[in-house]
C-alpha cells in the first residue's frame, strides 16, 4: 500500500491541542488513504491519543484545538456537536482499549448492535437484528452471540464485538486506540489478524494508536512516530524499521525487547539447597482451581521466568511464594523454611509501583520501611542505608523527600525495587515489574534489575506475560497455562524452540519486530 495523497480519507494539517497553557499536541500533519493502516506510535504523554480524540471532537471542554482535520471534504475541527455526531460512527468509528468498559453490561450484544445501527439509519427491529448477526459473523463470532451479555464473553470476544460495533455503519475510517493492549498475546494475534482481514475485505482505513512496536510491525502500512506532542518521523513500516532516520525512533526500536536476541545464559547450581521450592501446590478460589499441582524450584542466584497469559495462575504462585496466600495443599519452602519466617530474606516488586507505595510517605520512608520494621538500622546508619539504596537504583538523593505522586512511573518502580532490596534479600519476587511502563523506561528498569541481580546475586522469580522481557532476564523459564506447568527449561530453549503445542502457539503469537525487517 503506498502513500496515496490524492484522496485521503483523513487529512490532518497543523493540528494543535493545548490544555490551558500546556501544549499536548504541537502541529501534527498526517493523512490516511482509503484502506490504509496508519500507526500512530509513541510513549505515554506523547499526545497520540489526544490527537485521535481531537479529530473526533471527544476532548474535554478545557482543551483548545487549532489546525485542521478533514474527513474527505468535511472539516472536523471546530465543527458543531450535531455535525460531529453525524460523523461519529458513520464517518469515523472508534475502537477502545478496554472492551469491558466499552460495552453496556445490562444489554445483550444484539441489542447494542441494533441500537447503533438504528441510530444512523431507518431499519425495523428484525432488519437490525439480521444485520447484527451479519456483523458478528464478519468479526468471527457465532450468530448465537447475539443473545449473549458482555459478561458471558471473553476479553477477545468482547473486543470483536466492539469492532463489530465500529463497523456497524460502514465507516470509512476506524480509529483503534490501543485495541489489543488489554488482551493476552494469543488473543492479540487473533484481533490483529481480524483487523487486517477486515481492511482487506472492506477497504476500511485504520488509524492505529499504540505504544507496542510489535503490533505496528504486524499490522501497519505506514508509521508516524510521536514524541512530546510532535511528529518526529513518518515512513512506510519497512523503511522505518530498517532505516529509522530520527534518533528517537532508533532509540525506541532499540529499547523494544525481542525474543532470541540475548546470548543463552545458563545458571550453574553451586549449592544443593534451593532458594525457593514449590511442590504440588494447589490453590482454589471457591470452585475455581487457580493453581493445579504446580511444582518449581529456584536455585541460589538463579533467575526463573514465570510466563503465562492472564488467568494462568502466575501471580497467584508469586503470592504463594511470598507467603501472602496459603495454598490448599502442597509445600512451599523458602531457603528450607516457611515463607513467612523468611520475610527478611525476601523482596517483592509489584506491577503497579504507584499503588504499592503509601501516598502519604516520602520516598525515603517508603524505601526505609523494611529497615524500620525489622529494626535493622536507626539514626545515622539508617539514613546512610536509605541513601545507598536510592543510589543503587539510580535515583538522585534529592528525591528522598518527594512523595510517590511526584515521581514518574519508572521512578516509582525504582523506589519499589529499592524497597525490595532494603534488607539485602536472597530471593526477589517480581510480579510484572515492567508491564505498566513505557518501552524505553522498561528497558532502563530491566537493565537495572539485571545489573543488580548480577552484582548482588539474589535469586529471582520473575513473573511476566511478556515473553521477550522474560527472555532478556531469565536463566530458566516455566510456562504456565490454566494453572498447570506446560513446559520448563532454559530460556533460550523454551522460548526459541518450544516443544509443547501451547508454548509454540504463545511464541508465534508474539508480534515480532524481526518479521517487520523481513517484510522490507
Amino acid at each position, binding site marked *: 500500500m503506498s502513500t496515496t495523497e490524492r484522496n485521503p480519507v483523513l487529512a490532518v494539517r497543523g493540528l494543535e491541542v493545548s490544555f490551558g497553557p500546556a501544549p499536548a499536541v504541537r502541529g501534527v500533519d498526517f493523512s490516511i488513504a482509503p484502506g490504509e493502516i496508519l500507526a500512530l506510535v509513541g510513549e505515554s504523554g506523547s499526545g497520540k491519543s489526544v490527537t485521535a480524540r481531537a479529530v473526533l471532537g471527544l476532548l474535554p471542554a478545557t482543551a483548545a484545538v487549532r489546525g485542521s482535520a478533514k474527513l474527505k471534504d468535511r472539516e472536523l475541527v471546530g465543527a458543531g456537536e450535531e455535525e460531529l455526531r453525524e460523523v461519529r460512527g458513520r464517518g469515523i468509528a472508534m475502537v477502545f482499549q478496554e472492551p469491558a468498559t466499552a460495552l453496556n453490561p445490562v444489554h445483550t450484544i444484539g441489542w447494542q448492535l441494533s441500537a447503533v445501527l438504528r441510530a444512523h439509519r431507518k431499519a425495523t427491529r428484525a432488519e437490525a437484528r439480521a444485520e447484527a448477526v451479519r456483523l458478528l459473523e464478519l468479526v468471527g463470532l457465532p450468530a448465537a452471540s447475539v443473545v449473549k451479555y458482555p459478561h458471558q464473553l471473553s476479553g477477545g470476544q468482547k473486543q470483536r464485538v466492539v469492532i463489530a460495533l465500529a463497523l456497524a455503519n460502514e465507516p470509512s475510517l476506524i480509529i483503534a486506540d490501543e485495541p489489543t493492549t488489554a488482551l493476552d498475546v494469543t488473543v492479540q494475534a487473533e484481533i490483529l489478524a481480524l483487523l487486517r482481514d477486515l481492511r482487506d475485505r472492506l477497504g476500511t482505513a485504520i488509524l492505529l494508536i499504540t505504544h507496542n512496536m510489535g503490533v505496528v510491525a504486524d499490522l501497519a502500512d505506514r508509521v508516524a512516530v510521536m514524541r512530546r506532542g510532535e511528529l518526529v518521523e513518518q515512513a512506510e513500516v519497512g523503511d522505518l524499521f530498517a532505516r529509522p532516520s530520527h534518533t528517537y525512533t532508533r532509540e525506541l526500536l532499540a529499547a523494544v525487547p525481542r525474543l532470541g536476541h540475548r546470548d543463552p545464559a545458563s545458571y550453574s547450581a553451586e549449592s544443593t539447597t534451593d532458594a525457593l521450592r514449590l511442590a504440588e501446590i494447589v490453590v482454589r478460589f471457591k470452585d475455581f482451581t487457580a493453581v493445579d499441582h504446580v511444582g518449581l524450584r529456584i536455585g541460589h542466584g538463579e533467575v526463573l521466568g514465570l510466563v503465562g497469559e492472564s488467568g494462568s495462575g502466575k501471580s497467584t504462585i508469586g503470592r504463594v511464594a511470598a*507467603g501472602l496466600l496459603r495454598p490448599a495443599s502442597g509445600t512451599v519452602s523458602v531457603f528450607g523454611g516457611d515463607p513467612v519466617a523468611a520475610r527478611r530474606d525476601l523482596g517483592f516488586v509489584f506491577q503497579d509501583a504507584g499503588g504499592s507505595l503509601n501516598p502519604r510517605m516520602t520516598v525515603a520512608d517508603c524505601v526505609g520501611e523494611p529497615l524500620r520494621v525489622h529494626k535493622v538500622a536507626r539514626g545515622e546508619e539508617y539514613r546512610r542505608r536509605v541513601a545507598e539504596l536510592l543510589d543503587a537504583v539510580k535515583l538522585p538523593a534529592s528525591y528522598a523527600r518527594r512523595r510517590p505522586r511526584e515521581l514518574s512511573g519508572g521512578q516509582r518502580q525504582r523506589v519499589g525495587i529499592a*524497597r525490595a532490596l532494603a534488607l539485602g534479600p536472597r530471593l526477589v519476587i517480581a510480579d510484572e515489574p515492567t508491564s505498566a511502563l513505557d518501552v524505553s523506561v522498561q528497558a532502563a528498569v530491566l*537493565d537495572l534489575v539485571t545489573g543488580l541481580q548480577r552484582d548482588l546475586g539474589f535469586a529471582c522469580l520473575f513473573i511476566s506475560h511478556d515473553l521477550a522481557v522474560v527472555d532478556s532476564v531469565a536463566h530458566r523459564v516455566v510456562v504456565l497455562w490454566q494453572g498447570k506447568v506446560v513446559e520448563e527449561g532454559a530460556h533460550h530453549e523454551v522460548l526459541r524452540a518450544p516443544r509443547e503445542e501451547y508454548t509454540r502457539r504463545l511464541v508465534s503469537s508474539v508480534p515480532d519486530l524481526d518479521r517487520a525487517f523481513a517484510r522490507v
Partner: protein
Amino acid sequence: MTAVLEDPVEPVEVAVPARPRVFARGKGLIGLVLVGVVVLAGLVGPLLVPWDPYAQLPDANLLGPSGAHLLGTDDLNRDVLARLLAGIRVDLLISFTAVPVGALIGCAVGALATVNNVLDVAVQRLFDVLLAFPQLILAIGLAAVIGPGTSSVMVVVVFIEIPVFGRLLRAAVLKVREAQYVTAAEVVGARKAHVLRTHVLPNSLEPVLVQLALSMSVAVFIEGAMSVLGIGVSPPEPSLGAVLKTALGYLDLNPLFAAGPLVVTAVLVLGFQLIAQAANAARGA
C-alpha cells in the same frame, strides 16, 4: 538489553502541585470566616455588652430593639443580646467537645471492629439500631432517661455521632486495607499494629475530618431543637436554642425577637457546612 535512553531526569508525567490548595479559597474561606465571626462573638461579645445574661432588669419587660438593648429584652426582663452571646459559648462548648468525643469513640469502635468478623457484624447491627432512630426521637428518648440539661445534650450528640463516625472509618479502613501498599508492608513482615498505624489509619482519616465539620453543624442544630422542645439546655442557662424558645412565645409581639438566635444558628451551620464541602473538594472527592 543495552539501551538506556531514560533521561537522567525523567519527565514527571503528572504535574502535581503539593496538594490542590483549594481549601483556603472560595467556600472554605467563607466557611472559616463565618464560623470565625461566631466564635469571636462568643468569646469577646460578653465582655463588650454591659448587661449580665442572668440579671433581671427593672422596667424592661419584652422591650423591642433599642439603643440600650440592641435585640430587646425577654419576658423575664433580661437582655436578649447578652443571653445570645453567652448562649453561643454554650453551643460552641457542646460542638467542640461532644462531636470530637463521639468521633473518637466511633472511630475506635469502627476500626477495632474490622479486626474480627464476628465483632464486626455485632458492631454493625448495633450501629444499625442507633441509626434507625431519627435523631430527635433518640434525643427525646435519652433525655427522658437522663433528664434535660447541657450535659444531656452532649450525651445525645455523642450517641448520634458514634455510629456515623464508626461506619465512616470502617468503610475507609476496609477500602485502604485492600491497597497494594498494605500488601507491600505485609510482605516485608510488618506487624498488624504497624500496618494499621502507619498505612491504614493515616489514609483513612480524610473522610473523618470532613465529617467532623459536618457533625459540628448537626450538633448546633440538635442543641437548638432540644432546647426548643424543652429537653435541652435548662433555664435559666442561655443557649441559642433557649433564647429561640423564649422568642417563639412572643413572636406576635415582635418577630425580631427570634432574628438573633436564628441568624447566629444559620451562620454557624452554613459555616461548618461550607468548611466540610471545601475540605471534601480539597481531598479530591
